[in-house]
């Protein structure tokens, strides 16, 4: 009877989300660049033969996702031709019509079914506490609400337009399978995901180490360390064959045609700069800020010559290379080293595996670490850390505190993605909705305040930043001379919060490792 009520509420939540997204999109015929990107890919995959897919560059938005995604777009294009044939012509750059937009929006909503199913599976795996709770306080319900109504996902997918619901659905489903102990399925799903969007390479190390350690070695010693004798070659071969077969399915045709280098060059364009035009709130944003501050200070104190400073334009314009003025410049290899150093902690699951939950924690640390130190990170990538972290947040009090911090700042950092006046009430309302819900539900679940006063003050400061950037600054005289200041302020302020959450998460992981060692002694 209880399960029935839970299922009913789940359906209510899902339908609520679907209906909300339909209402939101119906009137708002925006045209972000992502629309054009995906329209172009529909056109390329539909109109051109496979051999031309990764060579085509009529439009600047070339195909830069792995082949499985191209096949996905190909199948979508067969449905698209019933809506509007004109969108499938490659030459129709920036083509738009109500039917096109309707189709693209609907495709996101329909593919979200994967996400909805994945959330259901995750909720099933959530550990329940004993004792009767009313429905709204049940972890199952809270997790479902936090995932389905995730502000970042709603904004990025349904307003800004991407297929993240679909992709994160596969990721969460893979995590759920691991939590349920069905590792082969989880591995299969992750490989499929990797072949759909290669950004998930960031978390591949966590998968790799976990599967190798917990799946290929069937038993542990009593103290938790590796029992080398229990290595199971069968399992390793099974995993390997899954990875290879999926890879062959997706990349195979291109390898056969000898196009692999071209595909790889499209997938990994390193010519872009350290930061996006709007700095993602990571370590490099702080680094840039310090650099700029020092240079301004240096010019004021007459220590530096203005003419000698590079004509940097880090924030004005699209993706460009730039040099730092005072601090050493950062190259891609440096970011790689920093990222690897930051996620070194995940070797802890090699030494002391903590089952699927430890793996999940490492996955989040991996995602967040690569967000913090990566090259040309987009602020949307914060979702890769937030969504899996929600599962941990409903199970432990400390995680809930870190989650609230990370999620609020991460979501706020997405605000500059929607900059028109029409979108302002929507993003403010949805943000308030999600933040209010996450705070009150987690507070009720763990019976007590989850944040210390300093953190609360920081989060309240976000309100001040928002008012400053959206209301006060545009009316001030500096709006025309320095239009990038609101973006700068938002980015730097949020990176403080994100860095802080990362450090706390890291510390919690190390502390777990430490307690294990302590228990041993």
């Amino acid at each position, binding site marked *: 009877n209880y399960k029935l009520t839970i299922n*009913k509420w789940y359906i*209510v939540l899902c*339908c*609520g989300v679907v*209906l*909300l997204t*339909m*209402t*939101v999109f*119906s*009137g*708002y015929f925006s045209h972000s660049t992502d629309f054009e990107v995906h329209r172009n890919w529909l056109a390329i995959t539909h109109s051109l033969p496979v051999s031309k897919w990764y060579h085509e560059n009529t439009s600047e938005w070339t195909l830069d996702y792995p082949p499985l995604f191209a096949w996905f777009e190909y199948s979508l294009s067969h449905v698209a031709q019933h809506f509007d044939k004109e969108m499938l012509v490659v030459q129709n750059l920036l083509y738009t019509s109500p039917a096109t937009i309707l189709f693209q929006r609907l495709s996101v909503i329909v593919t979200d079914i994967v996400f909805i199913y994945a959330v259901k599976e995750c909720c099933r795996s959530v550990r329940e506490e004993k004792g009767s709770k009313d429905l*709204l*306080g049940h972890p199952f319900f809270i997790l479902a609400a936090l995932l389905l109504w995730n502000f970042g996902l709603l904004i990025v997918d349904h307003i800004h337009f991407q297929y993240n619901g679909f992709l994160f659905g596969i990721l969460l489903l893979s995590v759920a399978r691991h939590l349920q102990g069905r590792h082969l399925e989880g591995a299969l799903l992750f490989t499929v995901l990797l072949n759909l969007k290669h950004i998930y390479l960031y978390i591949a190390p966590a998968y790799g180490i976990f599967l190798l350690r917990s799946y290929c070695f069937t038993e542990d010693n009593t103290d938790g360390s590796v029992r080398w004798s229990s290595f199971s070659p069968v399992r390793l071969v099974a995993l390997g064959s899954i990875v290879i077969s999926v890879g062959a399915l997706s990349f195979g045709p291109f390898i056969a045609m000898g196009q692999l280098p071209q595909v790889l060059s499209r997938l990994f364009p390193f010519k872009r700069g350290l930061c996006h035009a709007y700095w993602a709130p990571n370590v490099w944003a702080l680094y840039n800020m310090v650099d700029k501050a020092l240079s301004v200070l240096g010019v004021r104190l007459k220590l530096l010559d203005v003419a000698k400073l590079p004509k940097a334009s880090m924030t004005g314009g699209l993706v460009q290379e730039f040099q730092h003025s005072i601090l050493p410049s950062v190259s891609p290899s440096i970011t790689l080293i920093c990222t690897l150093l930051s996620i070194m902690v995940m070797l802890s699951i090699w030494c002391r595996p903590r089952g699927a939950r430890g793996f999940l924690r490492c996955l989040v640390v991996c995602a967040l670490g690569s967000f913090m130190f990566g090259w040309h990170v987009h602020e949307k990538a914060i979702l890769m850390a937030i969504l899996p972290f929600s599962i941990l947040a409903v199970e432990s009090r400390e995680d809930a505190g870190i989650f609230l911090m990370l999620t609020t700042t991460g979501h706020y950092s997405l605000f500059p993605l929607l900059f028109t*006046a*029409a979108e302002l*009430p*929507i993003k403010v*309302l*949805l943000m*308030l*909705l999600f933040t*209010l*819900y996450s705070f*009150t*539900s987690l507070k*009720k679940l763990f019976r007590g305040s989850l944040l210390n006063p300093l953190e609360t003050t920081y989060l309240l400061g976000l309100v001040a930043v928002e008012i400053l950037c959206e209301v006060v600054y545009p009316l001030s005289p500096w709006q025309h001379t320095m239009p990038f200041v609101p973006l700068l302020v938002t980015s730097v302020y949020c990176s403080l919060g994100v860095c802080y959450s990362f450090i706390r998460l890291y510390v919690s992981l190390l502390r777990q490792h430490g307690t294990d060692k302590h228990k041993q002694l």
Partner: protein
Amino acid sequence: MENWSLVSICVLFGLTARWAVSLNSYSGAGKPPMFGDYEAQRHWQEVTYNLPVHEWYFNTTDNNLNYWGLDYPPLTAYHSLLCAHVAKLINPDWVELHASRGHESYGHKLFMRATVLVADLLIYIPAVVLYSFYLSEGSNKKKVCTVLCILLYPGLILIDYGHFQYNSISLGLALWGVVVLGLGWDVLGSLAFVLSLNYKQMELYHSLPFFCYLLGKCFKQGLAGRGLFLLVKIAVTVLVTFALCWLPFLSDPGQILQVVHRLFPVGRGLFEDKVANTWCSLNVLIKIKTILSTDTQLYISLTTTLLAILPSSIKLLMKPTLWQFKLALVNSSLAFFLFSFQVHEKSILLPALPVCLLLNDLPLPAIWFLQASTFSMLPLFLKDGLLVPYVVTSLAFLFFSIYLLSALEHCSEDKLRLGPYRQLYRIGWALFYFSITAMAGLSFMSVALAPPAQLPDLFPLLVSVFSYLHFLGLLLYFNIVQIAEPPQSVRKNQKKSN
């Protein structure tokens, strides 16, 4: 979870739905020369800002009454003046005399939508929250669900934020009147209602229940002593409020006459367009509009309206309780809608408001009525290009209200308050599903199919007749509920068992 957070979440959700709908098209978008209600509101801002008060309702060279002349009472004019001042600060082009006619722009649309949202947030939404928490019965969860369902009522959202009107102000003030009266502050309640009446004259539909309720209360307290005192207090409040609202016009009787003339245009016929009321539906069978003279039409309409509202009003007069009051509001406004003169389809919002208040007590009939009322306005929505919001908000409302209020599961014969008519509720359940399916089917047909050449108005007519049958049936039902109310002791027992 605590109440305040749940309520805030519901309110935020309601606001999001409202703003999302407001991103759609509005009445008369891109349709010169007359445009639609949106242009009318903008024009009123222009007129009230630029012209002196004594010219607002008169036909002058600067104020052509044929182009959306003011035809609402003074409070609407003052509200337009307030909005115009704000508009002038942002962009003076929006209210330039003559030059701004037909002005349509992205920024202006955002401004106008924002004014509706602000008014809603300040007046209607607090009233809904207060009503649910202080005047409705049930657990806290049920009260929060009531807030959500009332806020999701599609008809009001689509008309105010889609078609573009300010119904939330007049309905909100009327709701404040109900809430305050329910809390026992009669004078303040009558003040709120008079303000509401001075915003839109259609609130007259609600005036008889207010009158009967207050009069009944005075009678109950004894006309010799406290009752008379109360009566005098209320009368004085009403008169003073009217005087204050009409202050600029009181200097000249000609002004008052002209305003009244604008508010009640008796020159027009029995009905315009397709409305889901008796006369329009009757017109399908007998062309009464052409057979009878205007005076006879007026006479017949007046008589039938009075006959329809008589039972409910008398019952309320004899027994002025909150429950009777709510039902009388429904019965009176619905009777006016069905039988009155020159009714517009948007007037269905007037009975819809008190029916929203009954969501908690009589879930199934209330949801049925509210959905039928939204459906009855479908031709208007199609004309305004609001099809997708209509579909989505109706689905959302049905979904949430049915699940949250568990209308179909806990629909016991007690709750339907039909007393001896127990078997009917099962049939009612099946009829509800059939009706919703029929509405969906008719909606689909209105959009997808083209009407046959000899009957170009087929689908609007079908929609209005279908809705009319619903309204008539529900009018009978609500009247029966109000009049055949079980004796006091039975109701008290039922309250205990809840």
